[in-house]
């Protein structure tokens, strides 16, 4: 370490030692906030006159019920998207995709409803249409 070298170190560190901590603190204390919103849902949940079946999981709350006019309906309140590319809910008597009738496709957290025009099925099947994989078969017990 020569005296010239020490002088250079002193110069560099006087500048660096003062400027960099200031810039560092300015940068980390001025991180912009994310503009959070209150997100609405696209659908309103259906109010059933009487609920005939209910199932609550981490991913969804499912209700089957009777409307005022006597028709049957199904409502799924999805809390978290399925980790699959294209998921549909189907009404099935067999408990699998044989003869299953399409009800609705689900995407992100939202409310999905359909009328059960063919009567109350024995099962509700959750099916990944792309991977052709049954994700769940829900037995509707009376």
């Amino acid at each position, binding site marked *: 370490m020569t005296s010239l070298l020490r002088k250079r170190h002193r110069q560099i560190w006087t500048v660096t030692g003062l400027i960099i901590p200031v810039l560092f603190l300015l940068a980390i204390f001025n991180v*912009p*906030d*994310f*503009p*959070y*919103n*209150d*997100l*609405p*849902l*696209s*659908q*309103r*949940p259906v109010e059933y006159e009487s609920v005939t079946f209910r199932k609550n999981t981490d991913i969804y*709350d499912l209700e089957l019920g009777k409307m005022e006019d006597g028709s049957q309906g199904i409502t799924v*309140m*999805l*809390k*978290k*998207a399925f*980790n*699959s*590319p*294209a998921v*549909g809910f*189907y009404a099935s008597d067999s408990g699998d995709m044989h003869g299953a*009738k*399409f*009800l*609705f*496709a*689900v*995407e*992100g*957290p*939202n*409310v999905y409803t*359909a*009328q*059960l*025009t*063919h009567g109350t099925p024995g099962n509700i099947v959750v099916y990944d*249409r*792309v*991977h052709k994989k049954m994700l769940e078969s829900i037995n509707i017990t009376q």
Partner: protein
Amino acid sequence: MQHQDAFYIGYLPKAPKNMAGLLKIVIATIALLMIFVASMVVVNEEKFDESTFEYGRLTELKGVVSKHPVPMLKVAMGTNPEGQTVYRSFVLVNFGKMGAYELVDELAAKMDEPLDRYEVTVRGTLIYFDGKTLLELTNRSASFLGHSMRNSPGPVSNSVTIDEAASLEGEIIDPKCYFGVMKPGFGKVHRSCAVRCISGGIPPVLMMKNKTGSRTYVLLTDFDWQPVNRKILDKIGKGVRVSGSLQKVDDWHVLKLNEATPVALLNDPINLAKNTDALWAMRDNHKATTCPYHLESAINLCR
């Protein structure tokens, strides 16, 4: 100057004893520091999204290729109890950081009739997260394997105006990275990649978030449904307010940006109440109703 009994010479076999003692402490300290810092970085970094990019796995799908509102493959999910065919929109993107506009134009040029008359078999790589799905045309134009005339050629797209003068706040992201290819696919760290993707033709999307972590997505086009990519490159990856006509096109929301001041940078945190009216209007049913829907329920459903 320190008076040392021992003197270190690197090219001799061993270091002097009093140095060796300190060195052992130094080495142990550095080893602990390695473990400590690595742990601190991993433990404290933000969780990554559960998004999926099925890299190395190609999937075949049959559907209708459309350029409206952005390049998409419309795949029929089924016919619902009301008798309507429900389509799922797979946003199409090209390999790398490129959009699929040219590929779809090439495909359309080969056809005798408009694209919506055909059912096309497409092979690509799936990208999906949080209810949205994209298909990467990994083999570029060779991703289109064949086509046939549709059995029942009706419209595959249903477009509804939600709010003519909507104003939404969030962050503009590129959907390819965000929904599966990169983590994180948003924020400043990812900004330059998002700029590359959107500059390359991947459709920009506004990502909106609430405090409980739920998110909503809105495709962005210009007022004539045309790509708006090049005009918004300096607004990507930052808090913005976008203004325009809000549409629901099947399973995607689309905002047709205004000509004048379509995207404004936000400097200050948002006053949440400002946007509520426009946001309540975001519904499949475009009829105006008095909405009894309560915020509390919305928060219950959002995790």
